[in-house]
C-alpha cells in the first residue's frame, strides 16, 4: 500500500537505474539503454492507449447507436482494434503516381511526431511527469498545432482535389481555433500564476479550478472543450475529413500503415487534449479536495493519483466522443463564424473577467 501511494517517476527511474548499473558498467551505454527502455515503454504506452481509445470509441458509438459494437475478436471484441491494425499493416501503402512522393510519405510521420511531442509536460500521476517544462502551457499550445503542418502536407502532396480541399479547410480551422484554446489556457494561467503544468496542478490542492473559479472558469472550460475538439479535427468539426463531402479529405489517398498513423495521431491528440483539459480545469492527478476539510481530503488521497488523472481524462474523452456521435457536421463557413464571432469575443471578455476575479480574490 505504501509503495503504491508513494511511487513517483524519479523513484522508479532511480530503481531501474540502479538495477541497470549493476549490469552495465559503461556509463554511455547505460544512458543509451535507459533511453531505449524509456522510449520503448513510451511507445508501448501510447500504442496501448490508442488501442484502448479505438476500442472505446467503437463501443461508445455502438451503444449510442443501439448496436453491440465489436464483439467477435477477443473477449467482448477487445482485440478488434488489434486485428484492424494487423490488417492495416498487411495492406499495401499506396502512393499515387501524381503525388509529391517525399512529402506524401513524410506527412504521417510529422503527424505522429507532432502529437507525441505534446505529452512531455503532462503529469500522469503525482511526480510522474516526463519533463515539467516551466513554460508548459505555451509549449502545449505551440506543439499541438504542429499537426496542421502534417495535414496541409498530406492534403497538398496527394495531388487529389478532395485532399486539397480538406487541407485548406483544416488550415483555416486549426489556425482559427488556436486563438480560443490559447485564451482559455490563459485564464487558468492568470489564476494559478504559472505556466508550468506541474505548478498548475499543485495550485489546485484545495479545489479544482472549475470549482474554485466558478462561472468564468466554466465558460473557459466549455470554450476549451469546443475549440480543442476543433483543433484535433474531430466531428462535428471534422471539416478536413468530411466523409460525406470530401470522401476522406486530406487522407483520401492514404492506405495501410500510413493511414494508420493518421488514426493513431488523432487518438493521441484526443488523449492529450483531454489530459490538458483535465490538468488545467479538473486538477490533473490532484484528488478531489475541498479546502479546509482535512478529513475528507485525506480519504480522497487514498485513491491513487493516476486513477484520478485517468478518470478525469477519460471523462472528457467520453464527452468529446459523445459530440462526435450526436451532432451533424458544421459547414466550413459556419465553423469560422462560430470561432470568430462567438468563441473568440466571448473568451476575450472572459479573460478579463477571470483577471478581475483573480486580482480581487473572488475565487475560493
Amino acid at each position, binding site marked *: 500500500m505504501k509503495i503504491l501511494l508513494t511511487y513517483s517517476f524519479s523513484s522508479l527511474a532511480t530503481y531501474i537505474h540502479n538495477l541497470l548499473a549493476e549490469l552495465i558498467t559503461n556509463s554511455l551505454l547505460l544512458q543509451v539503454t535507459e533511453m531505449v527502455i524509456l522510449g520503448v515503454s513510451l511507445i508501448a504506452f501510447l500504442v496501448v492507449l490508442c488501442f484502448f481509445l479505438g476500442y472505446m470509441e467503437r463501443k461508445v458509438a455502438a451503444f*449510442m447507436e*443501439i448496436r*453491440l459494437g465489436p464483439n467477435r475478436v477477443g473477449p467482448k471484441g477487445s482485440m478488434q482494434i488489434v486485428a484492424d491494425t494487423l490488417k492495416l499493416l498487411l495492406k499495401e501503402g499506396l502512393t499515387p503516381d501524381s503525388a509529391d512522393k517525399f512529402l506524401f510519405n513524410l506527412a504521417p510521420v510529422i503527424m505522429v511526431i507532432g502529437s507525441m511531442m505534446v505529452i512531455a509536460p503532462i503529469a500522469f500521476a503525482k511526480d510522474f511527469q516526463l519533463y515539467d517544462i516551466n513554460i508548459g502551457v505555451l509549449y502545449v499550445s505551440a506543439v499541438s498545432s504542429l499537426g496542421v503542418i502534417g495535414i496541409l502536407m498530406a492534403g497538398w502532396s496527394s495531388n487529389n482535389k478532395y485532399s486539397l480541399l480538406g487541407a485548406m479547410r483544416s488550415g483555416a480551422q486549426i489556425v482559427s481555433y488556436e486563438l480560443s484554446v490559447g485564451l482559455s489556457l490563459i485564464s487558468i494561467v492568470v489564476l494559478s500564476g504559472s505556466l508550468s503544468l506541474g505548478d498548475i496542478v499543485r495550485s489546485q490542492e484545495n479545489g479544482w479550478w472549475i470549482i474554485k473559479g466558478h462561472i468564468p472558469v466554466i465558460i473557459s472550460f466549455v470554450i476549451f472543450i469546443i475549440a480543442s475538439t476543433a483543433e484535433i479535427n474531430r466531428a462535428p468539426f471534422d471539416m478536413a475529413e468530411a466523409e460525406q463531402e470530401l470522401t476522406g479529405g486530406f487522407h483520401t489517398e492514404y492506405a495501410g500503415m500510413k493511414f494508420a498513423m493518421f488514426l493513431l495521431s488523432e487518438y493521441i491528440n484526443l488523449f492529450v487534449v483531454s489530459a490538458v483539459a483535465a490538468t488545467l480545469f479538473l486538477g490533473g492527478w490532484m484528488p478531489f479536495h475541498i479546502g479546509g476539510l482535512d478529513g475528507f481530503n485525506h480519504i480522497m488521497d487514498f485513491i491513487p493519483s493516476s486513477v484520478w488523472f485517468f478518470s478525469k481524462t477519460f471523462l472528457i474523452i467520453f464527452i468529446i466522443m459523445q459530440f462526435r456521435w*450526436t451532432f451533424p457536421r458544421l459547414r466550413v463557413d459556419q465553423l469560422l463564424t462560430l470561432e470568430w464571432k462567438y468563441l473568440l469575443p466571448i473568451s476575450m471578455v472572459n479573460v478579463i473577467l477571470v483577471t478581475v476575479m483573480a486580482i480581487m480574490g473572488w475565487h475560493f
Partner: protein
Amino acid sequence: MFLKEYFGTIYKSIKSLLVGMKVTGYYFTHLDEIKTEEYPDNRATLKMFDRFRGEVVMPHDDNNEHRCTGCQACEIACPNGTIKIITKQEILEDGKKKKRIDAFVYHLDLCTMCNLCVVACPSDAIVMAQNFEHSVYDKKQLKKILNQPDSKLMQGVE
C-alpha cells in the same frame, strides 16, 4: 438589442445541443435498448415468416411423390426465364402415353422471388421456402433440379 439576440442565440444553441446529447446519453446508459441481431449466432432461434419468399421448392411427400404435372404454367408466368421444365413421355400401366416431368430446372441465380410462378401453378406443386442462405462459391450450384430423383406424380393430380 444586438447583445440580447447574441446571447439568446448562444443560449438556444447550447440548449439544443444538450437536448441532442441527452438522447444519445440515454441510449448509452440503457443498454437493453440495443437492437442488434447477432445473425449467424441466432440461427437456432431465427424463424422466418411463413410467407417469406426465399426460394422455390417442390414439396415431395413420403412416397417421393410431387404434384407437378409439367403443364409449364409457371414457366410461362416467370418474367425472367428462371424455370425450365423438361418433359418426357411416360407409358402408364394402362398403356396410355402421358407427359411427365423429367426435370424441373430452377435457376436460383435468375430468380427475383416475385412469387408469380407459385400463383400461376394450378396444382400447387411448387411453393416458396423460407431458406435464405443461398451463397455458394460456384454460380453453377445455383441451378437446381427441384424434382427429386425417381419421384413420381402424386395420385389424383391432373
